[in-house]
């Protein structure tokens, strides 16, 4: 059975990665609009995804306003595919509920 990626097996981070997988580039404001997280919380999740190599950050300016753009890296895209493959393989086992995913390994907070 595939092991679940600890970085992605956290609802907020998984949602961020899923949003990024549907498009090419997003900025911090868009993620705030879509997710409804606080700035600090979103920032810490983005740091975590960047450290894992799943997200590339591009800091720039829109006129005089600083702007941070995020892009899912190839590594992140691959990790997301593996994550869903692991989830699907777990769900395909008869009698396995998704709560079992908590047992091994626990989501990394």
């Amino acid at each position: 059975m595939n092991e679940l990626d600890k970085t992605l097996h956290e609802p907020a981070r998984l949602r961020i990665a899923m949003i990024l997988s549907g498009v090419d580039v997003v900025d911090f404001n868009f993620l705030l609009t879509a997710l409804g997280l606080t700035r600090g919380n979103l920032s810490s999740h983005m740091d975590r995804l960047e450290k894992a190599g799943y997200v590339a950050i591009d800091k720039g300016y829109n006129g005089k306003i600083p702007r941070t753009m995020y892009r899912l890296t190839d590594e992140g895209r691959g990790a997301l595919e593996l994550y869903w493959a692991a989830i699907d393989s777990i769900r395909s086992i008869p009698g396995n509920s998704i709560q079992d995913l908590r047992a091994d390994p626990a989501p990394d907070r």
Partner: protein
Amino acid sequence: MKSTEPGTMNSTEIDDLRAPSHWSRVYAQNRSLPVLVYLAANGGFFALLFGLAAGGGMAAKAGHPALAVLASIGFFVAYGAMMLLVFSKRGHRWIDEQYQRLYTCEGSVKIESKRRQRYQWLGYAVGAFFGTCITAEVLLGLHGYLPLSLMQPVSALYCVPFMVFMWWWQRPASTWVMLLGPALYAAHALLLVSGLPIPQDNMWAGIHMMGAICGYGMLAALLSHAYSRYALRRLQHAAHGNARNGQG
């Protein structure tokens, strides 16, 4: 049904987690407010081109060659400016600025069209062909070689493929909703050919062509904008849920 234990997800919630990818893409493809600005600008250019062509023709007939030459120069300057807006990097930068300005509150989200980046020359070539067709048709119509009743149907022969090309050229950044524009323009042409009693004098010929191109395009852009609002709601619904579990 949501699981009660923090950090756990039931089967439905896991399926919900796949939704943000779809709705973020739909939302990004349908953010069409800049298209409305773009079509309004193009509509202005069309009106200017039509006015200059008609004015030049009338000046020539009335025996004012200087005015006719001036109108012709104005026509080609306006035509060049329109082509710059449609195909140049500067034009794209202007559209991008409008895009950023209109969506400041919601933030920026983009899907890049690799085809447009890779085959920019194709855009120039098709744009030049489209411009040549429209110029030739307007000149033929003004000199009486093409009946006014056939102006719009004949223009549909190159406008519809051009609009479909523009849609294809910008894939995957463009939305299928924008295909409504060329579909309505083709339907308009078919209705005119089938003999629908529609006014066909000089002014109406212009409205059938330029007005219809911009009007149907703007209608499609408005519908696309409405769809983007729906997609944003669905995205927020899908992405808000357990995202709060990650707070704190």
